[in-house]
């Protein structure tokens, strides 16, 4: 495709030289900016305590202490904090799917009266992010209206508010809109009710968008900090990021860095496996069509 630079220019000798020079320069800049910090973290995790604190620092670890990871896992009791994180993230993910898929299906295919108003009210909340509503949502979680429950220090305090995600409903609805109504009519002729139609016809066709929404939910829940910090004051219940932030000043630097590497490894692995879905979900959703 034609871009800023004319393809013919790139075929000249001068054009080619400039192209490769700029490419090399940008490659270098990007690598310094994005690979070196990650490299630094990875190698810092395997340095010895005196080496990681030494000035000037070493670029290649003098001695590779791979045992730091095992030591961090043991000393920081990471089994517990990873299980906590998995419980919070997995629950938030499943709860979101259970709430958002039927909602998007109803708005897209069952089209109830005032459906557009409901969607509009949901979309408005996109601009009132949870962070800015920290205090009233916290007070709601402390004493859930009508139910009179106190959810502090329970996983539900993280799961339930995660369900109110208008962005997911919006991209699910947009995808469902493109499933032809004839398919649904055919299912109805065969005697399928709305639940069967959703589960048997719409969901199998929507696997790609469900994957995108799932990954978005998982990544968002894993990255969240301020909310679990506030609603899970019991240290034994906290996810790994809240825990690491709390203990950071009190543990040896190389053990902390090993902990940081371990805390980011699952998301990095998820990204490398699902990068196509993640990157396409990013551009599909953010531009609104």
């Amino acid at each position, binding site marked *: 495709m034609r871009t800023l630079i004319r393809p013919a220019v790139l075929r000249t000798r001068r054009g080619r030289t400039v192209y490769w020079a700029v490419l090399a320069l940008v490659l270098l800049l990007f690598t310094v900016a994005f690979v070196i910090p990650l490299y630094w973290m990875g190698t810092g995790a395997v340095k010895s305590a005196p080496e990681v604190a030494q000035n000037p620092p070493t670029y290649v670890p003098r001695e590779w202490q791979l045992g730091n990871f095992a030591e961090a896992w043991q000393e920081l009791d990471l089994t517990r904090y990873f299980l906590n994180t998995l419980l919070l993230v997995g629950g938030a993910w499943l709860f979101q799917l259970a*709430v958002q898929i039927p909602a998007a299906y109803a708005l897209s295919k069952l089209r109830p009266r005032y459906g557009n108003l409901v969607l509009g009210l949901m979309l408005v909340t996109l601009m009132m992010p949870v962070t800015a509503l920290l205090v009233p949502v916290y007070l709601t979680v402390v004493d859930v209206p009508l139910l009179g429950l106190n959810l502090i220090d329970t996983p539900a305090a993280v799961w339930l508010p995660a369900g109110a995600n208008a962005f997911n409903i919006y991209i699910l609805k947009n995808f469902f809109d493109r499933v032809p109504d004839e398919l649904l009519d055919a299912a109805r002729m065969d005697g399928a009710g709305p639940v069967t139609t959703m589960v048997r016809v719409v969901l199998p066709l929507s696997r790609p968008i469900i994957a995108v929404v799932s990954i978005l939910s998982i990544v968002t829940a894993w990255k969240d900090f*301020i909310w679990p910090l506030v609603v899970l004051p019991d240290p034994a219940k906290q996810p790994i990021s809240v825990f*690491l932030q709390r203990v950071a000043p009190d543990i040896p630097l190389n053990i902390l860095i090993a902990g940081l590497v371990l805390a980011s490894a699952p998301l990095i692995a998820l990204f490398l496996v699902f990068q196509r879905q993640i990157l396409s979900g990013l551009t599909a959703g953010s531009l609104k069509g």
Partner: protein
Amino acid sequence: MTVTTGTSVTSRPAAAPGGPYRPAEQLRARRRRRLGEHATAYGFLCAALAVFALFSWYPIVRNVLLAFQDVNFATGNSWVGLENFRRLADDPLVGTAWKNSALFTLYALLLGYAVPFAAAVVVNEFRHARAYFRILVYLPVMLPPVVVALMWNWFYDPGPGLINELLRTVHLPTSSWVDSADTSLVSLVIVATWANMGTTTLIYLAALQTIPGELYEAAELDGANLWQRIRHVTIPQTRFVLLILLLLQVVATMQVFTEPFVMTGGGPEDSTVTVMLLIYRYAFVYNDFGTASALSLLLLLVLALFSAAYLRLTRTRET
């Protein structure tokens, strides 16, 4: 013998067998069926309506009420009028927090706006290594913000830190980064930009790919040089995305919390106390939820201005 053809003789629905044709009854039945369909649809929606009501809509309304209340878990809330706002006006930190948040947003726009756009424009010209760039720039977005913050605290360390060491290697002046009130806020902006620029860069890249190549050809025929083509084709063609991301970034960066909370705790000399950090302190350190709500309300009003502009913009684009 009867011959059935595709076209029916009459357009009215066939009467029930054995009974007379009664339109009113049929109409009522249809209306009942339609009502049943609405009920089914709301059955599918009820869980979503419940969580939105509890955790979005009600808190938005409640925030306004709480701003004028004294919150007391033991004896219940009481109305205090403008008392919370008066307390905010008396706290010198409030002005500092607004100034810091505004400056953070401004720096984040200058840096987080120009750098990803330039990166996207350049990378879009490459025929090689594009997947590499795309993965690289997005990797930090995948890191938990707490990890990023703790990691950069170590990078900024004036002693064994990576950043000063890199600067020394290329003979540039070093800095005390988060340890000095003069540079702490900018240091946090650098971290936030590093961590989040992947998202904006990739959105710009996607937008650049929708620009029709003929526009560049036409501009070239008119004798436009490289800069003029960027100025008169690239920028106008991506204007909508540029504007949307401007508003989204303002809304996001005005609420910055994790970086100052984890990296500096608001210091040194209150140079990184942001509005969100102060809201957190009022609520969870001083246990003064009323005043925290009053400050939240002010923040929400500011964000609402930008949000309204955003909604208006996307609405006009869709119709």
